[in-house]
């Protein structure tokens, strides 16, 4: 772990998490396309059953295929980014050793579910990807990634009209679920949204390099808070099923700080 008071010497590691099919690999391809001219990049994919993601990214021609490495997870994608990050750490070290120093290593999680997030033992920052096709209410279901990843991406906004999702509202509810944390509504067909994404990556990298960025652990579970009536001093706890929900009234059980 880098001390956040001293400038780090290695590449920033950026995790990309989120359910299968939300567009993680595509987003990484977009980042490579936009940033490979200015940053020295490496990519690690965590595949559940195949090395499909690595092959897709290699075939997309957005980065030297040698800089894209698949890691086997033994059918435990969750473990590989949280409970035992060894294989990913070694792959990141190898990428940097093989290409001299890199600026950014992007690690795609094997899309697991809403609760899978990266441990700060592996990444310095992470983004969590949802898509509008998953439905507008997914952000309200919450989860550690949605609530506390460094950035929430609501992807495929171009599909909003076709799936009956109000993108603006979904993004607003995302911000609410994150208590104002960053949200980017993204579509690979929308250049402006891509600039927002790359801008966030550049800013985060600059803060990381300056030693101003503190890695945050979104946590394996989704704490939720029972706010007091005045909206302050609620308490946070977790449920075994990782569900997040809203309580309209004060909770029946008293929390430590309620």
């Amino acid at each position, binding site marked *: 772990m880098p001390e956040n008071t001293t400038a780090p010497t290695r590449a920033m590691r950026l995790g990309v998490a989120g359910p299968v099919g939300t567009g993680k690999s595509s987003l990484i391809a977009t980042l490579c396309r936009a940033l490979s001219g200015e940053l020295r990049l490496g990519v690690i994919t965590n595949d559940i059953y195949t*090395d499909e993601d690595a092959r897709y990214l290699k075939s997309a021609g957005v980065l030297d295929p040698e800089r894209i490495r698949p890691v*086997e997870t033994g059918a435990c994608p969750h473990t*590989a980014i949280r409970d035992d990050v060894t294989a990913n750490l070694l792959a990141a070290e190898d990428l940097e050793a093989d290409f001299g120093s890199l600026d950014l290593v992007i690690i795609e999680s094997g899309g697991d579910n809403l609760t899978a997030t990266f441990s700060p033992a592996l990444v310095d920052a992470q983004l969590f990807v949802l898509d509008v096709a998953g439905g507008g209410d997914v952000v309200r279901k919450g989860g550690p990634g949605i609530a506390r990843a460094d950035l929430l991406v609501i992807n495929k906004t171009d599909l909003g009209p076709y799936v009956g999702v109000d993108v603006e509202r979904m993004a607003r509810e995302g911000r609410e679920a994150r208590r104002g944390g960053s949200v980017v509504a993204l579509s690979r067909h929308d250049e402006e949204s891509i600039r927002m994404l790359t801008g966030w990556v550049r800013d985060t990298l600059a803060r990381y390099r300056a030693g101003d960025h503190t890695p945050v652990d979104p946590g394996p579970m989704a704490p939720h808070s029972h706010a007091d009536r005045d909206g302050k001093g609620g308490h946070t706890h977790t449920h075994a099923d990782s569900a997040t929900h809203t309580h309209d009234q004060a909770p029946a059980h008293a929390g430590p700080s309620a």
Partner: protein
Amino acid sequence: MSTTSSLLLALLGDARLPSGGHTQSAGLEPALRAGTPSAQAPAYLRARLRTVTRVEAGAAVVARAVAADDGDLAEVEAAWAARTPSQALRANGRRLGRGYLRVLQTLWPGPVDTRARTWSRPVVLGLLAHRAGMGPADLARLVGYDDVQTVTAALLKLEPQDPLLIAAWVKDLLPDIDEMATQVAHLHTTEQIPAQGAPLIERWAETHDTTTERLFSA
């Protein structure tokens, strides 16, 4: 403060130890792909305990003795490599070594040879056992037990079945692990490291190394 060798064995043999073990099938994935029936997993494991796993355990025990005498572990590494003809298995063993080196440096911090990053699992484990205060027989048991658990845990992913039945297989193999450990626990010098090979396992490892759509690294 020191603890007992048996508790160290429990700690290091626990699948929850974050050393990268979940990426491994100890050759089971390519063995199944090559047509080995899953019911033969116990026989597969006995074959490993008499060959590749015995070499691994012997190398670990010798590395521990060499580390205790302040000798040169690079010689043990070379002896292990000479007994591990598959390039894929050597590369995998060295990746695993780096995983255990992280464990060593975090749990038992202290000066480590700069070449340690290139050493294989048995050599790093031998160094770790010396540093942690684990006896040679327990070290050999650890290598054998880890191999058995790696294969059986991978089997549950590759051909899912009743996990308790698989646990019963592991229990039945415990005497075989003890026997193997007894055979290597007294070894001290690099020449004494056993040199049994398992050509099929080595060939499967080579095939697996270039296979796509795999669950496990090796």
